[in-house]
């Protein structure tokens, strides 16, 4: 045990002191925080408006038009496709001359293409204008009535309440659950791969360097294998803990600054653009942000993080010993490793495919059963857990899944240890599946 501890320590320290590890641990959260920050910044700060002149020959817009996101629309019949640039417009939207029943093409003339979001909202504006016109002229509905109906309908909010096990109804947001489940499932998948491959490379290194022989003359092969697996697993947990700490710190900082900043941004935007339309948008953004924070705080973080660490740890232990067995069975040739790795990567890839399906139907029998089978459960179960634990995932499923994963880990380790013991000292050719099977199940 003392020797296993020495091995764990070495495996852990050599990797944690590695420059790549330190960089990836600190830069990944900074990278993501930066990415989110940039997206938020661009969304708020995007006040760089294009001016588009509209030649509304058929009078669809009735001489009034609201500017859409990032585009300022101005009704100006004196502009044509030749002189629009001189007059300071970046595009001209030309409406056909014909009557209101005509649904001929509206054409936009410009030298550069507009943003896709702007294009979509512009199209919507035109449709809405036509709609208003038709309603007014055919059914004689008053323009102000149409507007008030529209406004009332847009005020309806969709708020999903999920009934938990307790008396309190929880705020449920399937979009947040979807995102969280997807993220957690993928993170497990990627880390299982990264750390599993790390174990395999470590074993291969020891074998090709022939240091395994020196070490195995002082410790048992099983101790060497477990020392490596636990050491590298500890590296993975360290990285996660660092990420959790860093992300918590970042979001605390962002949480402290963003609302304040946002208000300032909104105010400034209001001042710079006449018409006050930005005010509305700014408020919407604020409300959206508030809602997002609410749903985020309604998520049971302790449960998700706890389950995540459990499924990472035992999923890793389940697969790592298999990776170690493969590493012990190959020689220098990395292609051998590829072909022997295939049966291990297969269930992992299958799991991610099931996960993508399960995330849209977390209650389906495919999702349920594959989240209980140890080969898939770390990935699939992590995708289901954010949908609610006694709700979507009953306690018996979670318990059974965890129990089977732990048993699975003991079984794979037992089998792998036998393959490893023989493989690590065998040089020459790579082992075949038949040979590995024999190593694993012979009686000795």
């Amino acid at each position, binding site marked *: 045990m003392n*020797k296993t501890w*020495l*091995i764990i320590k*070495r495996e852990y320290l*050599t990797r944690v002191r590695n420059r790549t590890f330190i960089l990836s641990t600190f830069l990944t959260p900074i990278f993501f925080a930066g990415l989110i920050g940039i997206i938020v910044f661009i969304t708020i700060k995007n006040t760089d408006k294009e001016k588009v002149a509209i030649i509304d020959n058929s009078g669809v817009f009735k001489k009034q038009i609201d500017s859409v996101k990032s585009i300022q629309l101005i009704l100006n019949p004196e502009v044509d496709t030749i002189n629009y640039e001189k007059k300071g417009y970046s595009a001209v939207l030309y409406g056909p001359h014909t009557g209101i029943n005509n649904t001929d093409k509206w054409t936009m003339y410009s030298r550069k293409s507009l943003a896709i979001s702007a294009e979509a909202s512009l199209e919507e504006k035109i449709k809405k204008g036509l709609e208003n016109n038709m309603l007014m002229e055919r059914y004689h509905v008053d323009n102000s009535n149409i507007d008030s109906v529209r406004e009332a309908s847009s005020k309806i909010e969709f708020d999903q309440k999920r009934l938990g096990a307790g008396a309190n109804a929880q705020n449920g947001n399937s979009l947040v659950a979807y995102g969280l489940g997807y993220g957690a499932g993928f993170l497990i998948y990627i880390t299982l791969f990264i750390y599993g491959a790390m174990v395999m490379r470590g074993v291969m*290194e*020891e074998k*090709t*360097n*022939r*240091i*395994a*022989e*020196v*070490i*195995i*003359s*002082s*410790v*048992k092969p099983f101790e060497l294998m477990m020392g490596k697996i636990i050491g590298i697993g500890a590296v993975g947990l360290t990285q996660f803990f660092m990420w959790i700490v860093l992300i918590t710190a970042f979001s605390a900082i962002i949480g402290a600054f963003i609302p304040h900043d946002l208000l300032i941004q909104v105010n400034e935007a209001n001042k710079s653009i006449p018409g006050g339309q930005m005010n509305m948008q700014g408020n919407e953004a604020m409300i959206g942000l508030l809602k997002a924070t609410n749903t985020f705080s309604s998520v049971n973080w302790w449960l998700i993080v706890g389950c995540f660490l459990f499924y990472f740890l035992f999923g890793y232990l389940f697969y790592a010993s298999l990776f170690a067995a493969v590493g012990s069975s190959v020689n220098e040739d990395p292609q051998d490793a590829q072909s022997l790795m295939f049966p291990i990567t297969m269930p992992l890839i299958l799991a991610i495919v099931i996960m993508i399906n399960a995330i849209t139907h977390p209650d389906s029998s495919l999702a349920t059963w594959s989240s209980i089978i140890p080969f898939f459960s770390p990935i699939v179960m992590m995708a289901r857990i954010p949908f609610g634990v006694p709700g979507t995932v009953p306690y018996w499923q979670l318990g059974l899944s965890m129990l089977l994963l732990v048993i699975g880990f003991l079984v794979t380790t037992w089998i792998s240890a036998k393959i490893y013991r023989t493989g690590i*000292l065998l040089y020459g050719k790579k082992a075949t599946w038949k040979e590995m099977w024999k190593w694993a199940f012979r009686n*000795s």
Partner: protein
Amino acid sequence: MPLLQVSHLRKFYATQKAVDDISFSIEPGTIFGLLGPNGAGKTTLLRMVTGIFFPDEGEITFEGKKFNPEEDAVRIGYMPEERGLYKKMKIGEQAMYLAQLKGLSKADAFEKIKEWFTKFEMQTWWNKKIEDLSKGMQQKLQFVITVLHEPKLIILDEPFSGLDPVNSNLIKEEIYKLAKKGCTIIFSTHRMEQVEEICDQIILVNKGRKILDGTVNAVKQQHKENLFHIGLNSSPPITISDAFDITDREDNGLVVKIKDGYNTNDVLQHFIQQQIGIKEFHEILPSINDIFIKLVEGTAVTRQFQTVE
């Protein structure tokens, strides 16, 4: 009491009888040579003695007790044939790690490493990595790591390959010193001149079987062919005798083989009677190399795969 006793050891692989019924015993303080052509089963034999492999049959007795790899590993130092160390790890840390795996405490390990590094003038290596070392330097380091924990039994698989004469001598001297201190050293090699120089006792293994066992001198006596070299003052005459056959002629000498029933005095008498001046007369003992080739020759040089029932 022998330090190590091996009796009827057997290890079969799927297609090879790697070690087939080998027995020998080693007294403490001897330097023991394990010889054999490539693929004779030397490495398998050594791996069983170090506890890496379990024998299929047979027994190993270490210091009078049944060999227990877990407990006895501390008293054995093993340097495998193809040496390896962690390439990216600092040399000092690596030595500390491997010494601690052998059961040394941290303080002891540090002290011992300092001592050996000073002895081999490796003090500046501490913070270097293995990839900075030449092959010969790595070998020196590996030797140090093997003997660091002062094992009773040191097993060296081809210890001199890749070393220049100076470093080779350095390690040879250390081997002598360790033997004098009471360590027992097993080393396997196929370089025969080293065996004659260093070893007290040898065994020769071929195709998994022991075909020779004894002290270097005894082995030579056992395989001598009654050849003698006679140095003469003049060029040798053409002469025939009942006592010997001439097997080789030189400018000023002859190599003769004494026939059964005669002895050295009969040969000398023959030349004295013929008034030929004799400058020197000595027995030609076969070199270990000759014995090796004689014994191994005729058997297939390369091992063939076979079916093991």
